């Protein structure tokens, strides 16, 4: 009696592996060569950030005041900042917040925006008008101003800025997803599911959502690039992440003070890493967007 079950297990596992390679292949096809390079770079940065305690050569907060503002050397590959902290270690630790903060912004905005859009598309009529109206009002405020408003009320911190930016990105996600879901809603397969007696919620989540999913993902990744820039900008202004926490926006800020004294290493390193991260995210977002469009 055990033979068939192990057999089916083995079959299931083979099928699983096949699906995995299929998924990898499909993702690679969607990303193209440049997209794959960008994804690899981003993955390396993300892994280094995730395993920062293992990867970083020094404690990011340990000030070696005797070695402050030293140039690149075998001991400190990228040199040290004004307080003598190792720049490479701070870059690795700083990437954590620079990736996780905007990531959280986009996750919140995508979930809220997608739910709003699906609701508007399915219910139509007054609900749709009301949602469209709320989105219009949200569009009337530039993204970074949401973050500044949140900081003005609840004080400077990472959580406040993330909250403010999350609201700012909801309309961008919702507008794209609403358009796509309205198109899907008119498809024959939706009427077929309705005739089979599936509920509105059921159709929305089992039929429409899987079909608009590539668009949701593409929009989320494209927005992530902007979120990285805006969160870093708010931290640069001194209204987001607070020192001594390592953050790339803050590092450009503190590196800026060293620039004026003729030591550009920290600002160059942190600025370059931000540009690299945003470039990777934007390239991946562009590829996903064009492949989601070509699926239409």
């Amino acid at each position, binding site marked *: 009696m055990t033979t068939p079950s192990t057999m089916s297990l083995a079959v299931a596992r083979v099928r699983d592996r096949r699906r995995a390679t299929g998924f990898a292949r499909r993702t690679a096809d969607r990303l193209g060569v440049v997209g794959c390079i960008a994804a690899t770079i981003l993955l390396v940065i993300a892994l280094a950030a995730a395993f920062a305690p293992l990867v970083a050569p020094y404690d990011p907060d340990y000030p070696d005041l005797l070695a402050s503002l030293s140039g690149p050397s075998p001991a400190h590959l990228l040199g040290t900042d004004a307080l003598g902290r190792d720049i490479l270690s701070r870059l690795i630790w700083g990437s954590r917040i620079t990736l996780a903060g905007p990531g959280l912004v986009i996750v919140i905005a995508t979930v809220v925006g997608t739910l709003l859009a699906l609701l508007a598309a399915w219910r139509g009529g007054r609900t749709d008008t009301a949602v469209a109206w709320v989105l219009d*009002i949200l569009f*009337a405020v*530039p993204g970074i101003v949401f973050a500044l408003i949140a900081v003005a009320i609840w004080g400077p911190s990472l959580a406040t800025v993330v909250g403010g930016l999350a609201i700012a990105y909801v309309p961008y996600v919702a507008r794209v997803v609403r358009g796509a879901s309205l198109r899907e809603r008119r498809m024959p397969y939706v009427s077929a599911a309705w005739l089979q007696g599936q509920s509105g919620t059921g159709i929305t989540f089992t039929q429409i959502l899987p079909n608009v999913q590539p668009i949701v993902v593409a929009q989320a990744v494209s927005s992530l690039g902007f979120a990285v820039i805006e969160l870093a900008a708010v931290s640069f*202004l001194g209204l987001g992440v607070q020192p001594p926490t390592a953050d790339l926006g803050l590092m450009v800020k503190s*590196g800026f003070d060293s620039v004026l004294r003729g030591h550009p290493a920290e600002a160059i390193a942190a600025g370059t890493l931000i*540009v690299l991260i945003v*470039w990777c995210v*934007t390239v991946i977002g562009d590829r996903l967007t064009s492949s989601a469009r070509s699926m239409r």
Partner: protein
Amino acid sequence: MSLAPYLLRRLGGLLLVLLVTSFIVFGLLYLAPGSPLAFILGPRGGTPEQIAAVTEQYHLDDPFLLRYVAWLGDLLRGDLGYSIVYRQDVSALISSRVGTTLALVSMAAIIIALVGIAAGTFAALRGGWGDQLTSTLAAVGLSTPSFVVGVALISVFAVGLGWFPTFGSGTGGVDTLYHLVLPAVALSVASAAYLARITRAAVLEEGGREHVQTATARGLAPGHIVRHHVLRNSLIPIVTVLGLTIATLIAGAVVVENVFALDGLGSLLVRAILQRDFAVVQAVILVLVVAFVVVNAIVDVLYTFIDPRITLGSRQ
């Protein structure tokens, strides 16, 4: 639809959005933790006179909706409140700083229009390595935050070469324009890159049209064809994007002004947030949002004038 009712309807919609956003800006005070009075006076506390002044300014003795109406009335009369930190009317603070921001945004807009359209047209017409180079530069430009560009510009052109001043907005006139060069470049990099992309796509699309083939077959000079047949028709997407870009520059200026320590609205806003000067925060945010909404509305209306094929008031 004819023109007058269309403009009236647009104006009505604009006023409605302004009304709602002004209500939200007004309501910010009541989202804050603690009582409005304690929030405005902050940890500094307040003398009985200050408490009376704040109560009077925000009409705190009235019911909630009446407070909004009274606040809006003050606003329309040009009374934006009183700054606790500067001990000055907020409207005076803003009017002394709005010029710098306006000059910065205008200068950036000119740079964006010139560089963006030129680079995009060059990439589309030149093709080959010119296209590759421009597209790569545009991709990097789009990924670079304005404050990183600002720090890099200061590092190279102000500290390194000494061609430009590091900080401040100068003493007025030509000196101010000279001080604004680096900030305007920093503000315009990402948008110019974006406009170059849009221009490139528009010129490529237009260049493949039949009327361009006809013009080429008729033996018109290539320069003439580019200027009168290709660019002219590509203007619609270009102008739209340019207009929307200018609206976003208003918010982008907040960051750039702080990098270069310019005395504009953005630096006023950030300092006011850090000093918990709520009247200033509220007023500057209101000014930024109103400017953003109004510029967007103007672009929307202009758009229908540029392209006669767009029917007035169609929503697409």
